[in-house]
């Protein structure tokens, strides 16, 4: 099985005056179809940079980024834009639904941008909203939706069409615990249905929905969850500490 997303020795440095800031250094990570990977780390650890580079929104200074086997660094601007449009969905903490479009029109938008006729796009968007249990939201405008509903619509928009890589940056940021959970359940379901996803979060309860959690510190991957082999004494899953 080939990875949907693969980072190979990725680095990113920014020039700031005379010095250079190393935002990411030698990060390697493969995300398989159906896999949800959470990236955790303190502010400034490089989480969002990693996501921007994985999504082709920023360029790596070193290493390679492959989405569906295509090397993003080898694509020209047009090809990269097409890949972003067709293969990658983004969900950010900042809600970025278009205020003048209904939920269904928001979900249909990426399809229309990709050349699908409006009616076909709307029909596909409506079907997806129904499948995600969001049918009753279809005709509403963003301002008529709660924060949690807006984020679920944003996830629908991120996966509409054939896009198999979902990148989410603190998608539950301002939501209460219960509403946040509905968003994460939807994200989890998309992965169970075959999407690959990267979830950036600083919240361990949210990261716990992932199959694997990687930890970033100062732009480097310092650890990741793996099968238990380093526990004190017998491991009893009923005992937390």
């Amino acid at each position, binding site marked *: 099985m080939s990875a949907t997303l693969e980072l190979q020795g990725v680095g990113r440095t920014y020039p700031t005056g005379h010095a250079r800031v190393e935002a990411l250094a030698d990060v390697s990570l493969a995300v398989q179809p159906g896999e949800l990977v959470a990236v*955790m780390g*303190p502010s400034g650890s490089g989480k969002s940079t990693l996501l921007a580079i994985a999504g082709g929104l920023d360029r790596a200074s070193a290493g390679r980024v492959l989405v569906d086997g295509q090397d993003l660094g080898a694509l020209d601007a047009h090809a990269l834009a097409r890949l972003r449009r067709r293969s990658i969905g983004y969900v950010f903490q900042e809600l970025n639904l278009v205020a003048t479009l209904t939920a269904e029109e928001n979900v249909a938008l990426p399809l229309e941008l990709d050349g699908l006729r409006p009616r076909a796009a709307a029909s596909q968007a409506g079907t997806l909203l129904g499948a995600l249990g969001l049918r009753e939201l279809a005709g509403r405008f963003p301002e008529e939706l709660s924060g949690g509903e807006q984020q679920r619509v944003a996830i629908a928009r991120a996966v509409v069409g054939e896009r198999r890589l979902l990148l989410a940056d603190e998608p539950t940021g301002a939501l209460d615990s219960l509403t946040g*959970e509905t968003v994460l359940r939807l994200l989890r379901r998309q992965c169970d249905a075959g999407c690959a996803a990267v979830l950036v979060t600083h*919240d*361990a*309860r949210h*990261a*716990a*929905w*992932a*199959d694997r*959690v990687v*930890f970033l*510190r*100062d732009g480097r991957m*310092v*650890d*990741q*969850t*793996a099968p*238990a082999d*380093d*526990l*004190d004494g017998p491991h009893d*899953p*009923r005992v*937390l*500490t």
Partner: protein
Amino acid sequence: MSVRHSLLALLERGPMHGYGLKSEFEAATGQLWPLNDGQVYTTLTRLERDGLVEADTETDGQRSYRLTGAGRQELDAWFSRAVRRDLVPRQELAIKLIFAVRSPSADVHQVIQRQRAATMRSLQELTRLKGDGDDLAWTLTLDGLLFQGEAEVRWLDLCEARLAGAGSPGGRATPAKGHRAEAGERVREGGRR
């Protein structure tokens, strides 16, 4: 954990015998806290001695227990009180960190990272156990454990950040090896101010 009050709460819904109480308790808590038979029967004997439950006559060799008026009052009182949160619980991890910080040989960062990954794994397991969240009592129990685990991860993050700050003014994540014990001392002193 109050086995005593849990049994009273189960008897609120009607008389039950010892084995039924044990299995109902484990079903309600998703078998997170398995009870042994001895625990159940010892507790029932004490509850009976204190007049909080009554035993009916034996049928099929089993005694059936029922809540008394005093038992009902005790149960109401239990629900009306908050659980005491110990100010300084004995905590295995805190003890390990205290000695890792002071140890000339231990790598505190490794201790923290390993624990964070392990706690994260527990959180993943608990999240999987949640399933669809259809069983409310079970979901509430898991939520509680998830929040505790999350708190531990945040605490470990803070430990690491304090340690980095104590290691060098530049705040690098990895203080030089020889300075580790010294860094720990400074963390400790910093915490007292």
